[in-house]
């Protein structure tokens, strides 16, 4: 068992090392074969593990590999904790990863950094698996940072583009801001409980109740709240919650498979996973839950609004990802951890699908990403179109697609939640459904419907040869379409199949802990639960369903029915549109205030601290002082004999006065 568990993350790691070190010396296809095989085997093993956990009833497998560090008071170990939660994550991660690997073969086939790319994504898979399988904070942090590194490298994969490297750096730094909170949270737990092991922390979490922590002597806060907020800040960074979200849209600079794998399906959900994993801790702090629900709702609504005005196909999907992450966060805040994880899973499928489909479109159009230059691809790329459509439906949450089953409980949970801000969250999420439908279908309509707008206007906008320009877009190869199909299947059926066990069964068992007395959202959901069919039918009576339809209609109106209406609307909105176009000026704020502030602070430190104080005053000042002393004392040495004699007599006089007359 240990061996098998260890193999799951290690296989991708070995593949990554192989591709990284030898990839450039062996034929290209070796890289993808090795990586795909490794990840594929990982997937199979993960499935076996899931099978064991779910069916054979190993509800919790806790394996220790080795002692990383023995601190005397505690041992920091490396090991795996496999329970339903992590088993599920493992399967999702390996599955999506495997599909993306396969897809990559087609997507990246002309790229010079082929092997490198495989190495990176295999490494990413390894890190992500370490993250989800860890049984302690240390290892989780390892995976956490590992995926961050992979993300950084992959966003900046086309390193000659300054925008790409900048986006990579931005992603890393924003994540680092999150890590700042994360590490403080971990530190607080460690300082109080003296351990980093999840099991031990959960067992002793009650000790934390009522403890206070002081920022400095005199200012006391609840320890649990501070720790939870710290951890959540980490999650905010990784899961791109407002205001630490700006890196995610920029991360679209990376190749599309990455956007699908890392920035939609897996890595960005690590924050959600972590909070769910830490549910026993978070349950102790209403303040933290409240913060989550508000932040999540804000993210959900604001990012959905921004999704409306994007013209880059990948950015639309990216903003939708942000918005959906907001939904998950709201679920966490509402203590509906299982709902969050469920949405995480379904979202992984349909969002990966959408990204990959977008990627498929992009290849077909020779790396054209602007929606305004697409259109009419429905006929030319039927598989892409159909799968996209499925993904869109799932995203919008139309029954019976998986998104419906995962999103609806979240909205309900927000309604039933007890913590402060849940009402705001409920309305934000509900409105979010409408907006989701709007931007999703705007994208679908612009890309696949209407008249083709590519070709003429895209003239000379990229470096592809002219010959390729005039070729009509055609359906992508099988390595691209097969993953799409698999994901589409998942997107359709994941919800309907798994909602019963995951949300209303005892699938998660003890791996997720909810205080169902104080935070009874899930309990109330459960109370209303009458089976899948009933749930489906009930959907037609709910507000979100109709809002979704309204959203689709609106999108149709503005894109296909009356394209000019959009422009008019933009004109009418004026300043408001400007705000949206500039992403609420958050980026500008970061750029102008934070980054520039940092740089000016840095240069001020250099000028004031280093050059003036350290160098100028301490070093040069001392030197000058001594030199001034030297010059003035030198001046006394006049060269005249009588002055010399005078000095001697004076010296004698001083000695005489001091020691003689004192008596």
């Amino acid at each position: 068992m240990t061996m098998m568990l260890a193999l799951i993350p290690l296989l991708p790691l070995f593949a990554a090392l192989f591709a990284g070190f030898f990839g450039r010396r062996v034929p290209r296809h070796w890289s993808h074969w090795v990586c795909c095989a490794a990840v594929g085997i990982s997937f199979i093993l993960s499935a076996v593990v899931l099978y064991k956990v779910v069916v054979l009833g190993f509800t919790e497998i806790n394996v220790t590999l080795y002692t990383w560090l023995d601190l005397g008071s505690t041992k920091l170990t490396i090991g795996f904790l496999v329970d339903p939660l992590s088993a599920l994550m493992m399967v999702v991660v390996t599955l999506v990863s495997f599909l993306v690997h396969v897809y990559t073969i087609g997507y990246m086939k002309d790229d010079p950094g082929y092997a490198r790319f495989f190495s990176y994504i295999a490494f990413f898979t390894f890190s992500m698996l370490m993250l989800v399988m860890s049984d302690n904070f240390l290892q989780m942090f390892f995976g956490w940072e590992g995926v961050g590194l992979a993300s950084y490298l992959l966003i900046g994969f086309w390193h000659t583009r300054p925008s790409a490297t900048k986006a990579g750096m931005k992603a890393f730094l924003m994540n680092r801001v999150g890590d700042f909170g994360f590490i403080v949270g971990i530190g607080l737990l460690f300082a109080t409980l003296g351990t980093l092991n999840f099991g031990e922390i959960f067992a002793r979490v009650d000790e934390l109740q009522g403890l206070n922590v002081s920022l400095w002597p005199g200012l006391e806060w609840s320890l649990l709240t501070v720790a939870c907020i710290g951890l959540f800040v980490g999650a905010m960074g990784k899961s791109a919650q407002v205001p630490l979200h700006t890196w995610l849209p920029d991360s679209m600079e990376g190749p599309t498979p990455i956007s699908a794998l890392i920035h939609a399906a897996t890595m960005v959900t690590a924050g959600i996973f972590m909070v769910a994993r830490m549910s026993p801790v978070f349950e102790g702090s209403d303040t933290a839950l409240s913060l989550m629900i508000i932040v999540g709702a804000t993210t959900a609504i604001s990012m959905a609004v921004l999704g409306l005005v994007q013209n880059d196909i990948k950015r639309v999907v990216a903003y939708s990802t942000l918005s959906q992450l907001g939904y998950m966060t709201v679920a966490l805040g509402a203590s509906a951890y299982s709902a969050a994880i469920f949405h995480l899973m379904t979202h992984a499928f349909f969002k990966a699908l959408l990204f990959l489909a977008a990627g498929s479109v992009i290849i077909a159009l020779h790396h054209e990403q602007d929606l305004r230059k697409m259109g009419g691809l429905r006929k030319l790329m039927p598989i892409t179109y159909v799968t996209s459509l499925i993904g869109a439906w799932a995203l919008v949450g139309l029954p019976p697609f998986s998104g419906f089953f995962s999103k609806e409980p979240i909205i309900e949970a927000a309604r039933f939640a007890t913590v402060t801000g849940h009402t705001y969250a409920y309305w934000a999420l509900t409105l979010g459904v409408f907006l989701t439908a709007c931007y999703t279908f705007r994208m679908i309509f612009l890309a696949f419907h209407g008249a083709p707008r590519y070709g003429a206007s895209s003239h000379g906008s990229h470096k592809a040869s002219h010959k390729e320009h005039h070729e009509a877009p055609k359906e992508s190869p099988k390595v691209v379409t097969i993953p799409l199909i698999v994901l589409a299947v998942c997107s359709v059926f994941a919800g309907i199949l798994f909602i019963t066990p995951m949300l209303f069964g005892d699938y998660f068992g003890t791996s997720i802990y909810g205080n169902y007395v104080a935070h009874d959202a899930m309990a109330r959901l459960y109370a209303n639960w009458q089976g899948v069919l009933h749930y489906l039918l009930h959907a037609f009576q709910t507000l979100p369903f109709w809002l979704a339809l309204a959203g689709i209609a609106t999108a149709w109106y503005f894109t296909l029915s009356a394209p000019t209406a959009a422009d008019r609307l933009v004109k009418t909105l004026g300043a408001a549109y400007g705000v949206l176009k500039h992403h609420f000026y958050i980026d500008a704020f970061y750029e102008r205030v934070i980054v520039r502030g940092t740089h000016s602070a840095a240069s001020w430190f250099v000028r004031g601290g280093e050059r003036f104080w350290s160098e100028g005053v301490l070093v040069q000042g001392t030197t000058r002082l001594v030199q001034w002393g030297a010059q003035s004392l030198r001046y006394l040495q006049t060269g005249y004999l009588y002055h010399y004699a005078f000095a001697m007599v004076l010296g004698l006089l001083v000695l005489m006065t001091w020691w003689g007359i004192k008596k």
Partner: protein
Amino acid sequence: MNVPVLSLLIWLPIIAGVAVLAVRNVDGGRPSRWLANAAAWAAFFIAVYVLCRFQSTSAAMQFSERVMWIPYFGIEYSLGIDGLSVLFIGMNALITLLVIAAQKAGSKGSYLSALLITSGLTYGAFSARDAVLFYIFFEAMLIPMYLVIGVFGGAQRKYATTKFFLYTLFGSLFMLLALFYLYGVSQTFSLQAWHHLPLSLYMQLILFGAFFMAFAVKTPMWPLHAWAPDAYAEAPTGAAIMLASTKIGAYGFLRLLLPIVPDAAQVLAPWMIGLSLLAVIYFGFVALAQTDLKRLIAYSSIAHMGLVTLGFFLFDAVALKGAVLLMVSNGLVVAALFFCADSLEKRLGSYRLTDCGGIVKAMPWLATLLVFFAMANIGLPGTSGFVGEFLVILGAVGYQLGVGLLAATVVVVGAAYTLWMVRRVVFGPVTHSSVSAITDLGMRERLLLSVLAAVMLGFGLWPQPLLGMADASITQLLAHMALSKL
């Protein structure tokens, strides 16, 4: 155990250094290079032997040697290592070996000689058990370093090396006064005896000040750091590495300051923590504004040393262990980064960030390794940099949330300047005409950096063996510090 292993370790490089100096002009310098390499390897193997034979379960001094040296003052040639020393001896051996092995044909014999002598003296400082012996090793290092920087350094070398010399001398002379005082009280220069010497708090505070001057300069800590960036930046790579990686200043805190004046350290801990935090943040920002690769590395190292001293003064087991591990790690990382900078400079002729850019295209090996080292510098888990940093931050949070928050800013600030550096150097468009024409790392450089990378990785993935060696001594140090000497 009749072989004086430590003496061998100390004097072998020194004598070899002198020999190298003697034969430096013979046969185009080939014998001198050969000799230097042989000596470095020999010292390395001796150090490995020491590491292997070291009993990690004991906090006692091992490999002891004692000979009366200056009977008039009761100064003994007394050597011995415990868990703290052994780590740094190992690191010094590795660094020396790499630095010497990194020298290509054409490097000057006198340079190699100075490096070897410095290395030998460093071993001495790490294994001295007599205060004066320690002081002499500590100070004698100044001479070869001074000369090496002055002769082989960059454009501002004369200014930098003078400043370096005077600063260090200035600080350490205060320590000398403290040693004299302690001698006056105890009639011995034995460090071991001083550890148990009762001292009034008033005296302890004064002694603390004196020791602090010496080690804060050497470490370096704000505000006594002004020599360091210049010296690191102007020194030739090998010397800069020897200077920045050996961590003798921080070691002084562990060996002398903390055990001798623990009560004063307790009393002044808030101030020291303040200074350390200031260093972490201030130097982080300063590093952000650097345009010179070596200076950036230098400031980064100093900022990390802030974290190390923070670990010392939290009086927490976790933090102290973290600090020790961070010292080792930072030594390795700084060495690696300086090596990278050197490789770049050799090809581009400049350390300026604006002259680099886009090297990943021409030098994928260097780019890969540089990114790895950058990640180690940031403290990415899995690399050595993480271990210490993480533990110190954990300790800091436990000490006081505010301290923890400030300490944790290193996570962001450190990443900011490191990534900025990586972005300027590794990625981005090629800004300099010669970048496209350069060749990737040669076999020697590749091997060298790979070894460092492997060590860092191994250390990051499994730090326990390393900590295990020092654990008993650190525990003992903590227990000792907890006892009042009043």
